[in-house]
């Protein structure tokens, strides 16, 4: 019979040998290191290929679904709510509203950054409400950013654009 209530405290013991950073860096325990050489090239698909081509031209494009009436951004070839193909392309503006933002002091490998990055979710004008993308903000002090702030995209010069989300350098506050 298993032990009944209140007679034991679970978990009764904690098995496991903790190691410190130095145990690893000074090789006090046996180790094996591996660095895989993985190279990927992701196909953008129908909708994102058009999206990237339009970015090269300095424009933002979305798709529309006639059934639910949404203008979907970033564009997809299907409407995931109606579960049917979308009905057409629509250009949207390169201005928008900040939905939420954060001031980041760390890089992708969790190392500290010297200058913080301001990242935000921007709901783009012309698309349905809440249709946002993530991007960085620039030309603004971190303390001055607020939810609801109006922003406009700052593009790279035409000859530097390569058809990537980074063709927009950052979004800056819209004056007025």
């Amino acid at each position, binding site marked *: 019979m298993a032990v*009944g209530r209140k007679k034991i405290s679970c978990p009764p013991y904690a098995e496991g040998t903790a190691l410190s950073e130095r145990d690893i860096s000074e090789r006090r325990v046996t180790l094996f290191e591996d660095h895989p050489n993985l190279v990927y090239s992701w196909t953008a698909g129908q909708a994102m290929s058009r999206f990237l081509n339009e970015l090269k031209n300095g424009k933002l494009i979305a798709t529309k679904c006639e059934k639910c009436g949404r203008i979907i951004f970033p564009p997809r070839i299907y409407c995931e709510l109606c579960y049917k193909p979308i009905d057409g392309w629509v250009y949207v503006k390169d201005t928008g509203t900040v939905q939420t933002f954060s001031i980041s002091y760390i890089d992708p490998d969790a190392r500290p950054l010297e200058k913080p990055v301001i990242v935000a979710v921007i709901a783009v004008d012309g698309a349905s409400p809440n249709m946002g993308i993530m991007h960085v903000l620039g030309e603004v002090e971190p303390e001055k950013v607020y939810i609801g702030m109006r922003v406009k995209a700052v593009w790279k010069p035409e000859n530097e654009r390569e058809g990537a989300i980074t063709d927009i350098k950052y979004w800056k506050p819209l004056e007025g």
Partner: protein
Amino acid sequence: MEVEIVKGLKFHKKQDVAIVGAGMTTFKRRLLETGKELSYFAVKQALEEAGLDIKDIEMVVMGSAPDAFDGTALKGEYLLDGAGGSDRPYLRVFVGGGTGVFAPIAGYWHVASGLADVCLVVCEEKMSCCHPHPQSAFKYIWDPILDRPLKPNLIWIFALEMRRYMHVNNIKHEDIALVSVKNKANALDHPCAQVAEKITVEDVLNSEPMALPVRKLDVSPPSDGAAALIMVAPHIARQLTDEPVWVTGVGWALDTTHWTNRDLYFPRYVAEAAKMAYRMAHITDPRKQIDVAEPYDPFDYKELHHMEGLGLAKKGEAPILTREGVTARDGDLPVCPSGGLLGVGNPISAAMGVKACEIYWQLAYRAGKRQVAKEVTTGVCQAWGDLMQVGTVMVMSNKR
């Protein structure tokens, strides 16, 4: 748009499911043992509590998060022999951070369907293999075209969600920091805890900024660890113990990876999963009918966010409950009495040890110093993960 996913579901099952044993290893930033050895220790502890031998186990479910952490592709297969998978049907499930409660749900299917009478559920994680920091493996969750060129860190989405939650509900960081203070203090009574300590709200607000508003003491650490649970059919439970804990409801739901198209202040996917689990468990008023809860708390604001998703508090009300002490161990609705991920550690899927295993121990009155003050009948545990997509919920009760 409210989508009623529960309407068409039929909850036919062959037999009820009980939990009779649980086990876990310590959670630490880096452990010497391999993943196989960690799984073995967790399973051994669970078998000891249940009074069973490995030969009594009929099927095994393993839950483990991305292969990228352990650096071993086909990780489920690699962990098999340590998890007791030799000579019996073995399955790996994985749904990001939600695996901690999803693996027991998969174990539930095995027994409720009648395919097995004794099913072992194991979760294991070795995040320390990934250098320089486990965060590096998270780089590959992001969309390669829209997000990765901006060099994001996963903390960014949590920071964006936290900011939205604070803005819509008008909540101050001080109220959110109370959760971190509570959980880290609760974890002082947990033998496996990694970062249990007594801190104050000022400590949280002055800690190192990561991606504001998220600061270092708002976040749970990456950990290595393993946990195990044993689920059995009613006739086996009767032979083993007078007081099994029954699984009365399960639910899971996912939302889209187009996370920028959602309003982040409310976790809709958790609400959908909870609706499914509550319907199965015949719970109509979660705030009154749930006695103890373990929502997933990798960040302090997530505990509040999930409490609202689980229906334990109205939208915006969760910080008020925390401030008034309702969610403390001696309160009316104790939340994360184990210390949660903020206090004990966050080994992604092995967080089952502080979620599902903790609710089981609380309902079996075996949680020792962590036992909540009030009488408990029904508990809920929940996990969450991926790109803020998945909600997995399990409701348990010690009365059938």
